């Protein structure tokens, strides 16, 4: 899923100064799964904003809505009756949702309430960790199903740097496993350590955002 985390309330408040009518929009998909922007978080954030604005001497009316998927037009249409009633929208969907809403309602200010951070899995309750960088050139078949692009701090392709800690954690974060240590362990368990001797050549980055904004066209699906 896409994961994200709330922006500091003060940062959101700073954007709201001068407005009197606000819509807070959540998304019941990824941002709900990672507990940043689902219905529960919308209904938590809205009163917090109301109180903070009140305290600033700038009372604001807030309406709320959580869409099934904020990145899709048909769900965004549910906002149509509400949009004319507000001056500003805070979206706590991922960056895709924020932009989709902004595109649908270009006359209204739409601000993000979340920092979108990664493509991740929930490892444990309350703990999410990156798994994919959408690099556009998947190499998981050669790294025993563990992604060094998303999970190595240096995105190394030919094995671990010298920075693996004694306990197998990454030099950049003592809580994060060195993914190359994990890759080697898995290769060893399968008796295929020698597979990792192959020199992986420089990666082709052009099918990711490095090649310019990504656009995917499927002629067979066009109407």
């Amino acid at each position, binding site marked *: 899923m896409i994961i994200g985390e709330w922006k500091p309330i003060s940062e959101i408040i700073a954007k709201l100064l001068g407005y009197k009518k606000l819509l807070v929009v959540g998304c019941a998909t990824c941002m709900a799964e990672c507990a940043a922007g689902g219905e529960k978080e919308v209904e938590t954030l809205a009163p917090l904003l109301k109180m903070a604005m009140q305290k600033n001497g700038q009372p604001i009316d807030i309406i709320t809505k959580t869409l099934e998927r904020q990145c899709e037009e048909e769900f965004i249409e549910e906002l149509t009756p509400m949009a004319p009633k507000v001056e500003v929208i805070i979206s706590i969907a991922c960056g895709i949702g924020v932009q989709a809403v902004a595109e649908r309602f270009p006359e209204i200010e739409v601000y993000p309430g979340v920092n979108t951070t990664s493509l991740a899995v929930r490892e444990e309750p309350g703990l999410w960790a990156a798994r994919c960088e959408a690099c556009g050139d998947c190499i998981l078949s050669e790294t025993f199903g563990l992604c060094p692009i998303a999970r190595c701090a*240096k995105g190394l*392709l*030919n*094995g671990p740097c010298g920075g693996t800690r004694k306990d197998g954690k990454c030099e950049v974060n003592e809580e994060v496993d060195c993914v190359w240590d994990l890759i080697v362990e898995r290769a060893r368990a399968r008796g295929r350590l020698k597979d990792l001797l192959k020199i992986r050549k420089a990666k082709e980055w052009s099918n990711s955002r490095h090649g310019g904004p990504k656009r995917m066209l499927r002629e067979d699906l066009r109407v």
Partner: protein
Amino acid sequence: MKAKIGTNLEKVLQAGHFAVTVEVGPPRGGNPEVIKKKAGILRGIADAYNVTDNQTAVVRMSSLAGAKILYDEGLEPVMQMTVRDRNRLALQSDLLGAWALGIRNCLCLSGDHQKAGAGGKLKGHPGAKNVYDLDSVQLISVLKGLRDEGFQLSGDSVEQPVPFFIGAAWTPLSPPEDFRVLRLAKKIEAGADFIQTQAVFDVQRFKQAVEKAHEMGLTEKTAILAGIIVPRSAGMLKYMNNNVPGVEVPKELIHRLREAKDVQDEAFKVSVELIESVRSIPGIKGVHLQAIEAEEILPSIVEKAKLLPRPKI
């Protein structure tokens, strides 16, 4: 070693001498005199001098500029080059520029992550964008391509070959330990002519790792120079043992410095002993000495270790 670049370091190694390289850290400012002063102190004690590339992810004078200053002072530089800050265009362009300026040895490194910031002692630039377009093994391949094929990574011609004596690093004692020798093998296959290792304090464990490399025939294919960091105190050793991945310091050594009456004198002795012990390991072809921001101590250490005068070839 098949390379015929003609650098002093290469010639010393090919003649079978025990090589000495020394690290020269560039300043955090732009004053060339800092490097010139170090050159004056270190002249004649090593076969080549490494200039570090924004080590510990702190901005310093570029290794290319530092290497050129050493070159102009008559010292042979080893330009260190990390893949942290430059993509494949910038790396290759700087390599061509370095070569044009007379620099012929290059050490290919991953580089400390930008979050390192000198272990928190300096601010550094932890918010920097992460490049790592290539990894260190791929950078070695790039140098080999420029030298042996006369091609850039893309396959475009460089008109005439750009030969470097290619170096790489080895951290044998970091986990996963059994893979480290395979990673060394990859670097050699990619084209590493010489290797400078992570600092050695635990000679026994280092020796075991080198034996594995020796058994695989790797010590014949490349010249391994053992890294020696001159210790300054028990605290420094303890810090490195706990915080610098791949650096293993035996407890007895920390104890020895802690109990020493004259720490400086004891650290001096330790350094000389380390050089002598790694020298006796089959397959070790030299030492790479680092006295972080205390280079003035190195001439006497090299002399005491009976590594002077350096061969003239």
